């Protein structure tokens, strides 16, 4: 993968070259420099000779630059979605209902594409988006129950909170929730554990029935945290926590840093990505997402005071 992308991807070719790496360099995966994720905001990240069949764009609020991920082979995304999603939520056990109001206005959303794909491929035809009409929802719920499947409600965190608050529809207590952590529709700040408690209370389900998904338009793979906050990766993804002052260095378990990802599903774009998300890893190699990374080494009088008080 390193050789292919170092040779065919002009952005990575130049990036690696600065570190003295050429496509034919023998390199350990952990020594490969990670490209800062904002590269996807700056220019097309695609291997030479390929044309994008799909372009995913991050949502971004007004005035914010949007990331753009050009996808040369959507089949890879399909396989990646199916393999990891069904590993955790087998098709014969779960009926998926997606509630992604904040994302539906973004026609280029990779999340909507993923949800739509999961709806399209369901062999029982039960996977769906949450209908506006409560009657339709109840009819759907009945079909799911007849089929003996569990409901998996998939949505962005704050859309789910609104749903719990509205109480327009009632979910059975066996429902499981898969939240994506997106805070796109509201400015309310909440920690993951507060979110889990609120969702648990709002939907009347046990905290163990709440799971999380970690994904972004720049990645063709998703990570899942089942019944908690620790994410595991598919076998083709390697997550590490990097020292923000020196992204070539790894943080020890328990130490916070930037989340670095090697995603082999990003075959034709860039597999070696340094995110701007703050994370921490445990001894098992699972990781937790703590929020966005904020610069610490501020200019001026700031940083010394920060350290001293």
């Amino acid at each position, binding site marked *: 993968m390193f050789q292919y992308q170092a040779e065919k991807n002009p952005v*990575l070719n130049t*990036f690696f070259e*600065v570190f003295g790496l050429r496509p034919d360099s023998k390199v350990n995966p952990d020594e490969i420099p990670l*490209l800062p994720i904002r590269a996807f905001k700056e220019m097309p990240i695609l291997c030479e000779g390929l044309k994008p069949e799909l372009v995913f764009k991050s949502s971004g609020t007004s005035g914010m630059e949007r990331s753009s991920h050009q996808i040369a082979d959507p089949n890879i995304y399909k396989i990646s979605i199916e393999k990891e999603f069904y590993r955790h939520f087998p098709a014969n056990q779960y009926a998926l209902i997606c509630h992604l109001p904040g994302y539906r206005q973004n026609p280029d959303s990779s999340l909507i594409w993923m949800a739509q794909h999961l709806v399209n491929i369901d062999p029982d035809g039960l996977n769906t988006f949450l209908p506006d009409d409560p009657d339709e929802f109840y009819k759907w719920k009945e079909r799911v129950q007849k089929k003996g499947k569990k409901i998996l409600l998939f949505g962005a965190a704050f859309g789910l909170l609104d749903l719990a608050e509205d109480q327009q529809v009632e979910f059975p207590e066996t429902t499981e929730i898969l939240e994506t952590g997106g805070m796109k529709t509201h400015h309310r700040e909440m920690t993951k554990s507060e979110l889990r408690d609120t969702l648990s209370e709002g939907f009347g389900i046990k905290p163990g029935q709440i799971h999380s998904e970690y994904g972004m338009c720049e990645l063709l793979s998703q990570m899942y945290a089942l019944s908690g906050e620790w994410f595991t990766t598919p076998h083709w993804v390697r997550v590490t926590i990097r020292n923000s002052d020196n992204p*070539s260095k790894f943080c020890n378990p328990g130490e916070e840093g930037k989340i670095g990802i090697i995603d082999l599903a990003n075959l034709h774009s860039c597999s070696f990505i340094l995110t701007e998300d703050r994370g921490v890893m445990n001894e098992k190699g699972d990781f937790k997402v703590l929020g966005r990374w904020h610069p610490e080494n501020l200019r001026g009088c700031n940083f*010394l*005071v*920060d350290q*001293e008080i």
Partner: protein
Amino acid sequence: MENFENHIERVSSAIEQWLQPDNYFLKEAIDRTVNEGMFSFPDVKHRILTLKETLRKENLERWARISGLRPGSLSGKQVLCLHAGNLPLVGIQDLLAVVLTGGTYLGKLSKKDPYLLPTLIRSFKNYQLMNDAYWSTNLEKLAGNKADAVLFAGSKKSVIKVNEKLHSLKIADPDTPRLMRTAHFSIAYIRDNKPETMEQLTDAVFRYGGAGCRSVAIVVAPFHLHSVKCTFTDYVEAFWLKNPQHQKPPESLFHRFAFNKAIGVEQAWLNVFLIEENVERPTDTFILYWMKGGLEEVENIIKKYRDGLQSVYATGDLIGEKMVDLIAEPLSEAQKPPIWWKPDGIDTIEWLQKQV
């Protein structure tokens, strides 16, 4: 109460005594500061020489007049100064404001600059100007000393932490007036690349390793970086020969250079500093942003990054011009401001007399 002239005279004499070349205590403090690697000798020397110029009696009188100083106006009042340590003696203006107003000084000195300021305090004590002063590098040691006002310079992010700490240590309560200054970078607008301009720009950017809030982080010029890159780096190298960069940047700066190269950003890599033709909100110390543009671009940047911006500098006839709500200061004074300059646009003496 002592009259205005006598008070300034006494303050001025104390400063003069402090700056005497044979002041053993100052010499020793400089040695320790340099030997312990806190600042480089050229940085400390530059700072002391600048203060020698700016703290002359007539300048103190001018500041006193501008600010409407009433000596003794803060008599019996305790003022807590939380000093930063990003450059030598960075909090000296706050200390002087307390002494000039006759307040009682409570100082949280920076662990990065713990030796220099106490030598001036010693001098003020010799002149009976700071009899009850108390200071420490450890805020905990000031616990229970109820302040009547707080002077602070630091990041917005640390303000909440600082306030909580002051409250828990019973130094300040929510009603205690506090001057929280959070600006952390400055802008320069140049219109030519004459040697004088480039030398001034080099000093404004690289003095003290670029760590001050008055240090230039964004340059707007009528030409692209690539057209002056070689000339400018010559000035920078000449500057570093006399004033070697003391603090080294984190490795992430090299990653940034690699990233810029990959996405085609024009830049100059100086090993310990990066100049790039691109403008972002300045947060890192070791990056200078360059933008081709004129007054309109300067004003747009001021509006966009007003929160956090300390000063805007210019040369020639633009000095003194209003740019948005800021008055352009001389580029040559970026690192040697007059003693009456207003951090975050606020005169410290005036503020103390109004608020306390």
